[in-house]
């Protein structure tokens, strides 16, 4: 989950509207009795217009970093080979704040796009595919037929083979010129200081600028729903295990209470109260719970380390990755808390039974 939040934009604003804008006649006469068929929508230049103004408005909300992107298609031509790629026009200083691509640079840097406006950053896999090297020039052809030679100023490697072979970055202004879409961006990606606010911030942005704003929760709804199902299954299994452990502790304490019935009678004959007897056995249960939790946490940590060391090659990834393991302290606290709590509850029932022992019933028949 953390990886999802860290690597994806928290909010993605696209040059789309969630609801189809109403036509002029419909706006003027919402209750009109006559339907006009075949009215063509107004032809608009695609993209987020006045994106700089929107960017300022978004950043003014506070705790937000935003970067404009103009994404389009292009063809790379080099040494007689042509390759279709995705070309994203970016502002490097802003892109660094919202994306991890800067951390994936293996040669050059995003900043070079500011220094050399004809510069382009491509994936190492694409460079390998076209036998390109840093500093070499390629011909970039846009769908509108614009042709521009560009120089490779950086290489990145994310490990995602498809991304590394098809994604490229260039200066926003240069891409706007290449794609014949001046002063336009078609995506604004947003990162928040507090990712959990993404849903409400996205709604605020959409209400403010009108363009469709999708939070990471909305974008990953299917995945999040799957995680909910996974959690339900996981907690059901853990709950069942805890229940079994509870019965185990209940049995142990019941046996101990049975074995110690005479001692309970002795203590009560001395003047110990029922509550004292309960406390003894509940404490014993709690000690079992704490000891078991510490042992379980130790074993769990060892197993987690073993799992984290497992190397896998996910489909579409060029590199080797380790199985993701969540090391958050909260999960250990919850597990230990539930285990100790269950142990105390499991011990309380036989402790209560033990505390009700009448000494005379035991002492009269004891030998």
């Amino acid at each position, binding site marked *: 989950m953390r990886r999802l939040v860290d690597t994806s934009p928290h909010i993605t604003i696209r040059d789309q509207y969630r609801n189809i804008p109403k036509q002029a006649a419909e706006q003027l006469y919402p209750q009109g009795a006559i339907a006009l068929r075949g009215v063509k929508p107004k032809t608009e230049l695609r993209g987020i217009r006045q994106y700089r103004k929107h960017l300022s408005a978004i950043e003014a909300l506070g705790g937000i970093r935003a970067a404009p992107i103009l994404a389009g298609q292009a063809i790379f031509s080099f040494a007689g080979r042509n390759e279709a790629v995705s070309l994203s026009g970016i502002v490097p200083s802003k892109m660094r704040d919202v994306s991890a691509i800067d951390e994936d640079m293996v040669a050059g840097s995003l900043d070079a796009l500011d220094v050399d406006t004809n510069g382009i950053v491509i994936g190492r896999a694409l460079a390998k595919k076209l036998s390109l090297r840093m500093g070499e020039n390629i011909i970039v052809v846009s769908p509108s037929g614009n042709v521009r030679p560009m120089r490779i100023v950086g290489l990145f490697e994310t490990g995602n083979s498809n991304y590394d072979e098809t994604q490229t970055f260039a200066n926003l202004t240069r891409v706007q010129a290449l794609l014949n879409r001046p002063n336009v961006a078609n995506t604004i990606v947003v990162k928040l200081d507090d990712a959990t606010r993404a849903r409400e911030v996205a709604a605020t942005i959409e209400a403010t600028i009108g363009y469709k704003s999708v939070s990471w929760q909305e974008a990953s709804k299917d995945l999040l729903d799957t995680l909910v199902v996974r959690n339900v299954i996981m907690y059901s299994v853990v709950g069942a295990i805890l229940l079994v452990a509870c019965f185990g502790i209940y049995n142990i304490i019941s046996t101990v209470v049975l074995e110690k019935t*005479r*001692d309970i009678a*002795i*203590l*009560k*004959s*001395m*003047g*110990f*109260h*029922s*509550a*004292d007897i309960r406390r003894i056995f509940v404490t014993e249960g709690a000690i079992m719970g704490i000891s078991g939790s510490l042992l379980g946490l130790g074993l769990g940590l060892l197993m987690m380390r073993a799992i984290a060391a497992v190397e896998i090659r996910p489909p579409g990834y060029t590199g080797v990755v380790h199985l993701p393991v969540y090391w958050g302290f909260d999960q250990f606290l919850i597990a230990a808390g539930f285990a100790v709590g269950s142990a105390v509850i499991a011990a309380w029932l036989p402790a209560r039974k033990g505390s009700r022992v*009448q*000494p*005379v019933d035991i*002492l*009269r028949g*004891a*030998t």
Partner: protein
Amino acid sequence: MSVLVAEKLGRTLDGEVPVTLVQDADVTIERGEFVVIRGPSGSGKSSLLYLLGLLDKPTSGRLLIDGKDTVGFDDDERADVRLRKIGFVFQFHFLLGEFSALDNVRMPMRKLGQLGESAQVERAQALLDSLGLADQAHKRPSQLSGGQRQRVAIARALANDPLLILADEPTGALDTKSSENVRLILRELASREGRSIVAVTHDPGFASAADRQVQIVDGKIVA
């Protein structure tokens, strides 16, 4: 003021056929008095002792301990009276096997909580010393002889300085020499320390050391 006064004390077990364990028992125990309860097996000696020691609830009559009527006391109130005013010695020592002799003697003091830890240890050691167990303090019950265990039990009964010691066949499981020893100890506790002793016994030799004997037959005090 009498340490213990029982008036018309009775105990009947409920059931399809009610069973009377003790019937209309009138008993008065004075300070420093050593009284033995005698009677045939099943006559209700131990049942009377448990009633007098607040281990069992009477179904009739009154029981005053140190002037306070205990009828109507709940379990915790009766436990408090046992803790502060009564010490028990049973036929079988009933020491806690996991604890040393010293810790067994400390147990009632720990519950009472009037003494600090070091004072508890000091008092427990002094009690064991007085009963000739100075060197046995750190041994567990399983490492002691029967006579030594019973003396530890007596030391434990004395832990909270009780007014009354109730003993149920205290020599029943001991050899002659140990029985004699226990008898002398109880006698001295009554004579020198002014503690009241009530003991159930079958042993005529033990009974001869008492100031007074109470005879019980079929749950009724006959003499």
